[in-house]
């Protein structure tokens, strides 16, 4: 089970490349064997991606084996591959809820227009992320939307929703 989880990125890579490859094959009005047509090149890229996916599966497998051997000796060794494990369930939950907040902001944006939507979003975000007092929260939120509004509409000629 552990080895399956560790080779998940590689397996996903293979699936994605196969999907791309199949889409290239069924492409209308193109002939896959003619390099000058529109589907030969994407198919070639898909094959390269497929190769990269397969390589990754094997690399991940050997590195997890190596890591298992290493961790038996010393626990606190940390390397780049460990980045995956440093994301705990709690982190993911925080990130997911925050992303939902952003989506909520995007949905509300055309309904409420920029000022109320952005103000509401900033207020709830800072409240949700904790560590900021209410007074500071309100001040920063207000200041931000005013600055963004004037800066963007004057300097960057942006039309706000």
């Amino acid at each position: 089970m552990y080895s399956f989880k560790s080779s998940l990125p590689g397996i996903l890579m293979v699936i994605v490349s196969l999907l791309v490859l199949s889409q290239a094959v069924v492409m209308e009005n193109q002939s896959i064997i003619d390099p000058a047509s529109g589907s030969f090149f994407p198919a070639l890229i898909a094959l390269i991606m497929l190769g990269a996916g397969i390589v990754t599966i094997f690399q991940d497998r050997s590195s997890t084996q190596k890591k298992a051997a290493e961790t038996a000796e010393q626990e606190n060794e940390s390397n780049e591959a460990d980045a995956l494990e440093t994301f705990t369930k709690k982190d993911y939950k925080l990130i997911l809820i925050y992303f939902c907040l952003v989506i909520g902001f995007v949905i509300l944006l055309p309904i409420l227009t920029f000022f109320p939507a952005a103000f509401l979003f900033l207020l709830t975000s800072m409240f949700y992320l904790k560590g900021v007092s209410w007074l500071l929260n309100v001040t920063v939120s207000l200041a931000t939307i005013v600055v963004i509004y004037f800066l963007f509409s004057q300097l960057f000629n942006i039309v706000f929703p």
Partner: protein
Amino acid sequence: MDILQQFLTPFINAELLLLVAVGTLAGIFVGAIPGLSVTMAVALLLSLTYSWDMLPALALMLGIYYGGVFGGSRAAILVNMPGSPSSVATSFDGFPLSQQGEARMALTLTTIFSFIGGLVGVAVLATAAPLVSTIAIQFGQRDYFLLAMLGLLLIGSLSQGSMAKGVFAAGAGIILGLVGMDSIGGGSRFTFGSLQLMNGIDFVVAILGLFGMSEILYQLKTLNEKGQTVTLKKMVFPPLRFLFKFLPLSMRVSIMGVLIGALPGAGGEIAALLAYDHAKRTTKNPNRPFGKGAYEGVIAPEAGNNSAIGGALIPLLTLGIPGDAVTAIFIGALFIHGLQPGPMLMEQSGDLFWVMVGSSVLANIFLLIFGLLVVGIFIRVVTIPKQILLPIIAVITVIGAYALNNSMTDVYWMLGFGIVGFFMKVHNFSVAPLVLGLILGPLIDTSFRRAYMAAQEPSTFLLGFVNSPISILLTLAFIFTIFSQTKMYSRMKEKMKK
């Protein structure tokens, strides 16, 4: 004469002058705040300056680029949290200096030598780029193809994570870039029958999602990480003899920095680390041991990473190959303003080149001014909590995506790319090759097919790769890059060392 006039344009034109100044100052702050990256800032600017003329937009982006790379050192020195990857090496000796009450000295020294490094970079850019472009002008379709593929391969293999993942990301980028109308045959590709996809995927939206939104999500993990702070003592100015003492070292690492920056795929962070290493090996009597607050240890990486910018601009402007993620976005900016980055760029819009060189010099001058004047404020800036910072960036990213075409659909696409980018980061995929593939994909596709059509037969097409000197060189470079990633190569290297 023309050249001098173009070079001086940013100095004379009040608008450009102001934009470079604002850009540099903003860049310094962006760079100084841990969690805000230069790439993110340039990506945001690309979307916000969509409606601008090209020169002002590029001037602002260049200012941010120089300021941002430099600004990273502020946080590295003051709170031991490098503001950007290219100032990681600066923190090795920068923070120990702060702890011993020499924060101001470290900040001033890095400013002066960043300025010197930056100027060396620009000087090399100004002399080398015209030379490279005279060679590059002879490139054929096949060479364009090879060049673009080589760039992708390099940026894929040299960026963090494994080469296979980098190559995969680049491939996925190319495929995403091909979505929409086929520019040669006229059919639709990967559109799944959707009319909206016929126009292709807007790479600015992708850039915003991949570098902006995904970064916000990723940073949430380190929400409560705070650097250790130090107190600033009163103003000290380094004695003049320091300038002469460290000048030779800074020149050496600056030259190194330009060369490394010019390599596609290797940018300021590698330049800074190698510069640090060089300083460590060549300095006989540092004022303190390296790692404990040696002046050379902050000077070398900062001179190195700033000179690398000039280097990174060389392949960007002459070959259309970006040296790092930021220059990949610059390529996008050139595309937006109707220019084709590549060998023809210098020929067709040489004025652009000299204005960019002029802006770079100007950005370095402002960097020196701001770096020396604004010191005290950084201690507050670098400790802005992420709880405040991240929501603000989220708002800017959303508005930036909306502003492109005044469309909410773009915003949803941006969010989608944000999620994809987040998971790529979690699983050690580098995002830069994906963006580069997305931007270069159509170019690679058309040059490949045109080269094939010109050759007519498969055998002549394949022979073409070894028929002209340029093609041979590029093909060899391509093969060597792949080979250098194999185990056989590293084993051979081991043997050579013995």
